[in-house]
């Protein structure tokens, strides 16, 4: 790239002339009979609000001079602000951009916060998400941890266990894990034994000792007794949880809907970096 193209002075001149040109375009467009845009009215309501802000900040009402100053500042600010918008300066300003975007988001938040679900809404939500509100499956099984030094004894142990050996607590290499697990919720089995073991457990045949089955602790011999399937909860039992999830889902849905609706009004192009050039975002 030519060196002068990178000079700040060049950028300044370029921006300056662009601004000047845009100004001319917009000014002429806006002048087309809409003189109201050239009129600044400071209403009584606005003045009262300025007084109130002053009072909260300083703990006293403004004097007549101070109020005059406030009004003059407001008029100045209004004029500058309007011209700045005409020049598109708001678009270059990260703070202004974020603030405006945020105001839009607050609008949709407000809309959600006043929404109250009817019973029909909640019943429909529950029906659509039965699984999320179902009681967990419960698992009943016995297990012993194998001594890593004696892995080769696993086969003999399995035979003994399947022939009625029952001194499991003495036998288990891991003493802090229960050898008998009685109708434990799936999530608790997961916490205690880890995901690998829990997944395998559910595929095992019932009523006899099998293994070895690996876990985060080592190898186990396991006898699965029963899996009580998770059952759907009644509407009454699930009501509070459903209301909570409905609100959270609705909030997200509204946000997504709003942004999708807005985006549908635009055609969006994201330019690719030219070959050889470093991508701006590297992941």
């Amino acid at each position: 790239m030519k060196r002068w193209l990178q000079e700040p002075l060049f950028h300044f001149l370029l921006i300056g002339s662009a601004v000047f040109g845009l100004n001319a375009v917009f000014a002429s467009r806006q002048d087309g009979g809409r003189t109201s845009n050239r009129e600044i009215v400071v209403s009584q309501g606005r003045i009262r609000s300025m007084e109130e802000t002053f009072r909260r900040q300083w703990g006293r009402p403004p004097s007549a001079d101070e109020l005059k100053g406030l009004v003059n500042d407001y008029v100045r600010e209004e004029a500058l602000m309007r011209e700045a918008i005409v020049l598109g300066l708001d678009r270059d300003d990260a703070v202004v951009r974020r603030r405006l975007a945020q105001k839009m988001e607050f609008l949709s938040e407000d809309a959600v916060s006043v929404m109250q679900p009817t019973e029909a809404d909640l019943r429909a939500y529950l029906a659509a998400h039965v699984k999320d509100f179902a009681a967990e499956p419960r698992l009943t099984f016995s297990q012993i941890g194998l001594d890593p030094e004696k892995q080769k004894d696993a086969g003999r142990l399995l035979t003994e266990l399947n022939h009625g050996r029952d001194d499991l607590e003495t036998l288990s290499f891991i003493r802090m894990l229960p050898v008998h697990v009685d109708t434990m919720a799936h999530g608790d089995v997961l916490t205690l034994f880890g995901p690998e073991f829990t997944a395998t457990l559910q595929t095992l045949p019932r009523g006899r000792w099998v293994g070895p089955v690996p876990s985060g602790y080592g190898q186990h011999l396991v006898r699965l007794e029963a899996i009580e399937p998770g059952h759907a909860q009644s509407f009454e039992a699930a009501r509070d949880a459903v209301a909570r999830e409905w609100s959270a889902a609705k909030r997200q849905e509204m946000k997504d809907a709003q942004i999708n609706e807005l985006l549908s009004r635009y055609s969006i192009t994201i330019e690719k970096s030219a070959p050889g050039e470093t991508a701006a975002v590297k992941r």
Partner: protein
Amino acid sequence: MHSPIAACLFILGIGTRPVLAQEVDRPDSATVHKLFPKGGFSPQAGRNYPTRVYWGDTHLHTSASMDAGAFGNRLGPEDAFRFARGEELVSSTGLPVRLARSLDFLVVSDHSDNMGFFPKLFSGDPAYLADPVGKQWYDMVQAGGQEAVKAALDVIDRFSKNQFPPALASLPGSELYRSAWDLNIKAAETYNSPGLFTAFIGYEWTSNTGGNNLHRVVIFRDGGDKAGQIEPFTTLPPAGSDNPRELWKWMAAYQEKTGGQVLAIPHNGNLSNGIMFPLIESFTGKPVDKNYVTQRRRFEPLYEVTQIKGDGETHPFLSPNDEFANFERWDKSNLALSAPKKPDMFQYEYARSALQLGLLLEQKLGVNPYKFGMVGSTDSHTSLSTADDDNFFGKHSGTEPNPHRWEHPVGCFGDKCVMGWEQTASGYAAVWAKENTREALFDAMMRRETYATTGPRMTVRFFGGWDFIQEDVHTRTPAVPGYAKGVPMGGDLPKRPAGKSPTFLIAALKDPLGANLDRIQIVKGWVDSRGNRGEKVYDVVWSGDRKPGTDGKLPSVGNTVDIQHAVYTNTIGAPELITVWKDPEFNPNLRAVYYTRVIEIPTPRWTCYDAVRFGVKMSPEVPMLTTERAYTSPIWYTPSK
């Protein structure tokens, strides 16, 4: 007495005949066997003690905290609860994030001072923007990134220097404050599901005078019907105070007024510059008195011993012979980086020495104010309770994962900074309770049946008594002899039978998703007859067939971490360690305190995961390894008179 029913009848005074005293003695063993026949399918049936540990974070900030919001946190209390329950969220910096495992409970503990200020500032409230400082903060926050971090630090700085703009303050009694507190309560009430997930109501009281950290998290046992009757205690006079005695008065008044119950958990003594566990009160310059020790003991059953702003178990200066003492130190100054650390401050800052100081005060005043149990928590300001090194989202939203977070300051005051890499990915609170409810967990905290970990979820049992024998670890799960023959962590040894030394049953099971265990240690503290503190660390059980050297030190377990790939293997260490240990140097005339420290094999520190994932090279002073650990609540011995 032959049955529990008869015992009840007796107690109710409706026995059918006069009963002699010896008949209400313990049931004989034949009766016990009848009641609890061996070999029953479900040994849990009839067991009236906690059989599982619940995991949680007692200390988490959301966007409702004045500094968290300014740091860029856009997630509120509801998001925090959803995340803790295991749901996937998008972090404030736009990164999808989820815990490997859900937590069982969470305390959202936003700062009580200026609660509600930040959301109002962020909404662009005109009155706030009319204030020059408010306008400046607002613009910095909107600019985001490091500018927002600066804004947050300025919020903290002005607050701790008492220069917070009055027009921006949110004070109890105002409508703004009320609505902020109501939001906190509402979020906890919405997400509290007894039996499944406990959402505690809570807040942080942030006493920070002179930049010295005396912060406490206050936790309610109660629901909104009681917690809603009051507003949190703040540090600003006239309604608030920076003196913990005033907080305890507030707590007593709350309990009086509502019939509810609260507890407080102090944290970061390491940033208090010698005033967290005082013998001389910093507020008066006088020795702590009977009132101080009584109130502290009543309201502060726990200490948060490890968290992101450093580990607080002990310090190499205090424990020069402890090779694991040099761990995740934040020891340069106070919290505000405004006053440097002096070595004589350490003993009043760390849990281990404080436990010994407590014995000393008990000797003098009859009450031990530092009879605390241990928990770990994150103190994250991101609404994300992340303590796993491979999933660490940092102290605040300015330190969420990015290639440069290790070299950016977490905070600077003046020209002094704490750098990103110094953050500790820690910790969680483990609570042995009978069920997952506010009441059960709170009661377990009050009896100190808790332990701290630096993140991993190892299961740890610790029982003290006079009759444990090695055989106890070979027959049944440790809890059975543990509860039958002794007291659990947090308890007091019963009266000493003549001639006996204390015995302890200690067991630790690795995190099923984590690293193997290197060793279990018992840390003993005491105070001698002249009032001198003493401490000793004993290795009591370890993996492999290592033999202690001539210096008594156990050789290192080794290291399997591959720093280039941020991986380790469980080819060293043990999945489980259990033993019974008897104090070989017991002096029955001296008060003593014992707690357990469980050490994992070395694993990659969060900085190592960052270095690999972002492909960055960090400076040589940045540690790439960590040795995660657990600290249990102690068991105390008191000589009988």
